[in-house]
């Protein structure tokens, strides 16, 4: 089910909220079970075929986690480690089979020259997210951060619908205390309105901004990539840069707002990354929970920066290559990850030479250099193949359109409405760089003061306005053809 549909907003969400808070009045654990069932329905509505896989993954990880905790409690650390390794192998095997088998077979066939067809395995939606969430859980169990395991809480922790499909990647210790807290289960009209505010901001970003600028991406990357003017190539690259930004930002805001309505605070996953003045800062602001996961469960276990500069750069490269590969089974993602690995190495090298010197000049230069690096990498990320990526990058450098293109009747509007595109890009730039993000504007974490102010008639007025505005946005989304969130593909 998609957040940007009438089915979700007008049916699933009200029923889930009503059921959750009504059951909470009688039985706190019962409401957790209800929300778990609702989340499973949410997932199955998309494609019920993947439900057994999700169930298998949850059950296997739950029992593995329990075995790790019990082994630790008995001081059987070797057994706990064996269970952890078994759990990691299980999770990675699922991920490799469903996400990378086609890629591995096709590349093996290409290298060996053997005539092997792709097995054509479909990617179960959300597998990357629920697998990483559970890997983190197993490691936390092994590190002694998790001590109790209740099946309904664990099931909800993994399937909780605001985060199930596209994150954020959650930690057990962040969520279970919130599930257990009685205050979470008490309905508050002010809380509902605050959640609606976050949700509506996200819906606006998705329906108007991300999907609005998306129409300037396809002509460049899917149709005309072999012959582009320099202007067209840059317009397409920047349009995708903003499409992905607003799409992911929208999902993050909507997930945060939805969860807020249920009284559960999700970690912030997106924090104005295009305001960054360095690549290091960019990765502290973009997909924060994935960056944190990669740092905590890959980069640091590899040795992090503790084994000298050379090993640090090697670790960075491995982390970013795998981070790239996490996004999908395509060489474009690996190269994208590699590019960011190189960017990070350069950034760390510059930082070790300059220290904190540079002031405003450094910030301005850093901003432009970071944006240039990010846009170039997004071209590789968006292209369906490396050949297409190279074509678009070449066009960004010197244009690749035939001379006859300059005689086109539509002029600069030859492949798309370029005048409109430039207005869109200008507007997106202003919004990204000048306006505060939803968390800066509304606040982070629980907002009891805001909830208090939005109770009563004032809250009713705001809720009514948000409801009408959301319905209009959903009408736009549905009638135009609902588009998935881009991160659903990863």
């Amino acid at each position, binding site marked *: 089910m998609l957040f940007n549909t009438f089915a979700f907003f007008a049916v699933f969400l009200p029923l889930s909220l009503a059921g959750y808070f009504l059951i909470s009045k009688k039985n706190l654990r019962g409401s957790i079970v209800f929300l778990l069932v609702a989340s499973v329905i949410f997932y199955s509505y998309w494609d019920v075929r993947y439900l057994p896989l999700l169930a298998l993954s949850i059950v296997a990880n739950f029992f593995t986690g329990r075995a790790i905790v019990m082994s630790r409690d008995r001081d059987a650390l070797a057994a706990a480690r064996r269970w952890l390794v078994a759990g990691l192998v299980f999770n990675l095997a699922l991920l490799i089979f469903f996400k990378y088998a086609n890629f591995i077979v096709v590349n093996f066939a290409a290298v060996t020259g053997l005539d092997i067809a792709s097995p054509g395995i479909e990617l179960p939606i959300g597998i990357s997210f629920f697998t990483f969430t559970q890997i983190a859980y197993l490691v936390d169990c092994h590190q002694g951060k998790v001590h109790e395991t209740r099946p309904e809480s664990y099931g909800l922790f993994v399937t909780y619908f605001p985060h199930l499909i596209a994150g954020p990647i959650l930690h057990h210790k962040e969520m279970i205390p919130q599930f257990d807290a009685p205050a979470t289960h008490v309905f508050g009209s002010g809380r509902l309105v605050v959640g609606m505010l976050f949700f509506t901001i996200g819906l606006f970003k998705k329906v108007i901004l991300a999907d609005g600028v998306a129409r300037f991406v396809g002509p460049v990357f899917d149709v005309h990539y072999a012959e582009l003017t320099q202007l067209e190539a840059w317009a397409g690259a920047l349009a995708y840069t903003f499409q992905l930004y607003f799409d992911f930002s929208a999902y993050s805001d909507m997930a945060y707002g939805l969860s807020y309505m249920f009284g559960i605070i999700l970690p912030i996953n997106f924090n104005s990354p295009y305001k960054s003045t360095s690549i290091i800062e960019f990765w502290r602001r973009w997909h924060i929970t994935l960056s944190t996961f990669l740092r905590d469960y890959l980069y640091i276990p590899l040795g992090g920066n503790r084994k000298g500069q050379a090993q640090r750069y090697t670790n960075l490269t491995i982390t970013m290559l795998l981070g790239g590969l996490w996004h999908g089974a395509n060489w474009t993602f690996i190269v994208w990850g590699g590019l960011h690995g190189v960017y990070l190495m350069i950034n760390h090298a510059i930082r070790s030479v300059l220290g904190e010197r540079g002031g405003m000049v450094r910030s301005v230069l850093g901003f432009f250099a970071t944006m240039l690096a990010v846009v170039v990498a997004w071209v590789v990320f968006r292209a369906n193949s490396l050949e297409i990526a190279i074509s678009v990058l070449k066009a960004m450098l010197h244009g690749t359109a035939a001379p006859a*293109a300059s005689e*086109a009747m539509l002029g600069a509007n030859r492949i798309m409405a370029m005048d409109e595109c430039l207005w869109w890009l200008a507007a997106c730039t202003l919004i990204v760089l000048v306006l505060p993000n939803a968390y800066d504007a509304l606040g982070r974490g629980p907002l009891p003061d805001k909830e208090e102010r939005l109770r009563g008639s004032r809250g009713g007025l705001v809720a009514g306005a948000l409801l009408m505005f959301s319905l209009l946005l959903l009408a736009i989304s549905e009638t135009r053809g609902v588009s998935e969130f881009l991160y659903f593909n990863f």
Partner: protein
Amino acid sequence: MTCLGLEVGLRFLPVNSGVRMQETTPSTPYARYRPLQPYVYSYGWAMNNAQTGVTSREGFNNSKDFADGANALVIGDSFIEAYMVPYADTVQGQLDAALGKVYAASSSGNGLADALQLSRIFVPRLHPKTVVLFVEPWDLRLIDQGSGRGHNLFVFGKDGVTVEHQPYVESKIKLQMLRSALARYVYYNLKLPDWAQGKGAGPAAGPAADAAQRAAAVARRDKAMDYLLKELDGLQRQYGSRFVFLVDADRATIYANGKAKSNWLPGDREYLLARLRAGGFGIVDMEPVFNEHWNNYRERMDSLPMDGHWNKVGHKLAAEGVLKLIGK
């Protein structure tokens, strides 16, 4: 409050005004709008491609007022009506600039039965030297299907094929509703009723039923085309007008280098061209023209994916094709 705010805001924006249709009568059995009606056209949620204009005295868009002794009459559907293109850029506008006394009788949703009805009515009144009849894939796909209110359809009876008109009567409720800019935005720009109808549509028939239905549809298509071409030939002979068919190209496959799904049903396009050649009608086939233009300039002839109607490039190439055929 929000609705009121939206209503006020939208009144300052180019919301599609909609164009009121004229009620049809037995003596005027064809779709047209109320005459001399100012309108605002815009497309989609963002009110793209905003255009303004006024319908002609005869209730058509993008046409000069009719007068006898026409050099050409262009008949078609929304492609020729062309709310999305200024008059000077349309086929008829460019033909008029070249020939003078060129008119257009076209309405959105017209099919080939409408084209025949319009020819029967306006060829005797205007005595055009050339009648340009626009055909696109859906004209053949839907040739045996029912029509919307205000339009005509082919009826397949025991005594052969006839044309039947579906009267248009204006809905009073709709008229009242559409006084609101917000309602017009939802109705015309978002096309919410179309979306709701699409959601309510039943599942598609299975492959076996498809094959049987397609065979029956092809038989009805052939009968309808026999009737249409015979009637048009009769008009040609009676009034000395020459019918030229302006046939749209398979643009989707041109853009995708043959890899996209065609809008034409398999065989429809070849069938149409063969029948027209056999009947001695003029043909302006846009397929090779659009193909060549695409290969040379990589420039679209429409506004896809937003809007599949021809843009000014499509219209210009079509006008050049017609002028080339009719000898100017």
